[in-house]
């Protein structure tokens, strides 16, 4: 912790310190690759972030109305594999949350903030984050996986569908970024 920054910080932010720089991307990528490799070696499958949400969603639907939950093939599929408390993906996600929290805290990057582009307001950012989250959630379900479960995990074993997914994500991302989202981020 640098004493200089504490002295310069405005009132109320005395605990803030200058965040450590992010790692070299190739080094961080190598580390991430080893974690992915470890997942394959230990569990026989890669990583995933979206499945845990479906597991919890199914559990919640079942809590509200078991008949209603069984009526959806998706809820039923996740209910069949048991409670979220014993789901591999839920524990993986819990670990990710803790791991990221520890890393961020150690690097001085933890603070209650809303991060956004310079040309929009906090409220606009939160609305866009919610809408984007809903869209990404639906997209990940259609594709049976997200950037973790499809792109990273699938590409590492040269899964053709995963590579097609990754291509589609970037094509759509770049198109929307340049056609519609410049005000949001630049």
């Amino acid at each position, binding site marked *: 912790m640098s004493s200089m920054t504490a002295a310069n910080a405005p009132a109320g932010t005395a605990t803030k310190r200058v965040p450590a720089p992010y790692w070299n991307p190739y080094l961080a990528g190598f580390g991430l690759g080893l974690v992915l490799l470890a997942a*394959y070696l230990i569990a026989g499958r890669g990583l995933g972030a979206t499945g845990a949400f479906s597991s919890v969603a199914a559990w919640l639907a079942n809590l509200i109305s078991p008949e209603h939950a069984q009526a959806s093939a*998706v809820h039923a599929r996740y209910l069949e594999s048991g409670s979220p408390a014993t789901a591999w993906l839920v524990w993986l996600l819990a670990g990710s949350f803790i*791991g*990221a929290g520890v890393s*961020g805290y150690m690097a001085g990057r933890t603070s*209650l903030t809303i991060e956004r582009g310079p040309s929009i307001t906090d409220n606009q950012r939160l609305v866009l984050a919610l809408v984007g989250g809903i869209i990404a959630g639906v997209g990940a379900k259609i594709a049976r996986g997200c950037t973790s479960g499809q792109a990273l995990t699938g590409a590492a074993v040269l899964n*053709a569908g995963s590579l097609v997914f990754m291509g*589609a994500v970037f094509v759509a991302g770049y198109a929307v970024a340049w056609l519609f989202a410049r005000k949001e981020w630049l």
Partner: protein
Amino acid sequence: MFPLSSTMELTQATTLGLALVIGLGFGFFLEKAGFGSTRKLAAVFYFYDMAVVKVMFTAIVTAMAGIFILSSAGALDFAELYIEPSNYPAAIIGGIVFGVGFIVGGYCPGTSLAAAATGKIDGWVFIAGIFIGSYAYAEFLSGFDTWLAASARPDVTLPSLTGIPMGWFVLLFIGFLALAGWGMSLAEKKFAGLRP
């Protein structure tokens, strides 16, 4: 010998404990790479900071090379690995929808978790969105999901499609990473002015 899940009898507690440990590493490196920052993630679409693609490609090539080497050496049984069945229309439609959500929301599911873990309120809101999206999919698109599961083809990989052994693809991807790394460093210089 590997994967342990098919060569050893792991108790549920051990399996879930291992999931937690793997998750710890996953979250740690995601955060260290800068994936907990929405502007770092969005930057990749405007070329001024390509770290996200560098990290992703390096991770893919690292894991791919490790899987290839270990399975060639006989330490890993590739046939025991879970390969998500391929369904190209679903991959394309889902990829497009997901890509739109990514740039609009500024995160993907894993990275929103890293953001939330470091206090980003927009990360928490994005997580709420994924939950709503997953729930809505189960409620309204379960018929589509049944079609999807029925029409996906198992074990479609580039080696199985082309007959070219995995090792050549590993070399190709390493070469591509080197070339892309060089291209990305040029792009970052060219688009440096876009950095807000």
